[in-house]
């Protein structure tokens, strides 16, 4: 599979996963009924959640495919910045979606649980 196709496939799979996630579905569902906050603010919040969910799905996808991986390796695979990955890892660990799986070159390895 060409690199371009692989990248496109990974991104679209991550987006599909994000749309299946409870978090994004919930906020999107809320936007369909009367919302008691400013619409612009609400749209921005949904956008940022969508963005986060796609990135988290990308990370989970990379871990499922080639895990366990370090932050640096995830960054190389997904093209996301390490600082962004660390933030998502904190959230994903809290949700129980990923877990630590040892160390490599003094860096933590992460694996996908769910």
């Amino acid at each position, binding site marked *: *599979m*060409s690199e*371009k*196709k692989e990248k*496109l*496939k990974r*991104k*679209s*799979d991550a*987006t*599909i996963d*994000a*749309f*299946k996630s409870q978090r994004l579905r919930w906020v*999107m569902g809320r*936007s*369909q009924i009367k919302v008691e906050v400013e619409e612009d603010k609400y*749209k921005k919040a*949904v*956008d940022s959640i*969508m*963005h986060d969910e*796609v990135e988290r799905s990308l990370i989970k996808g990379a871990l499922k495919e080639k895990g366990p991986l370090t932050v640096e390796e995830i960054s190389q695979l997904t093209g996301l910045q390490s600082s962004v990955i660390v933030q998502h890892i904190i959230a994903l660990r809290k949700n129980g979606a990923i877990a630590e799986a040892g160390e490599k070159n003094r860096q933590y390895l992460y694996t996908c649980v769910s």
Partner: protein
Amino acid sequence: MARQDILGEKAKEEFEPVIVAYCCNWCSYAGADLAGTSRFEYPTNIRIVRIMCTGRMDPTLVLEALSMGADGIIIAGCHPGDCHYQKGNYMMEKRFEYIKKAVESIGIEPERVRLEWVSASEGGKWAALIREMTEQVKALGPSPFRATANSK
């Protein structure tokens, strides 16, 4: 000119897009049916999927169709205020904003995805919509998914 060049040029000219249309059962599907029974001519690039209401449309249906090689997507429902289930099309209208953003973020032109209102009496509008969409998608070229599959 080499034979391959000629064939390549021909293949380019003959690009026939695949457009998936999700039609609501109560208005747009009946509108598409009317277009057929009224003998309106429109391109055969369309693949119609009947759904009960656009409010039932899951965004993943659009994304999955695109990732499977569809070049364009039409979501057609009842006109605002005419929904058989009262507010299904309003739900879709809201959801559609996010679908477009998601499609764009993947790297696909958002023009490939359209939300249209077609009532059961608008057979002519349906035929015109399909003609317009086919021309638009032909101008855009094959979807990036198809293009990368061909370049493999």
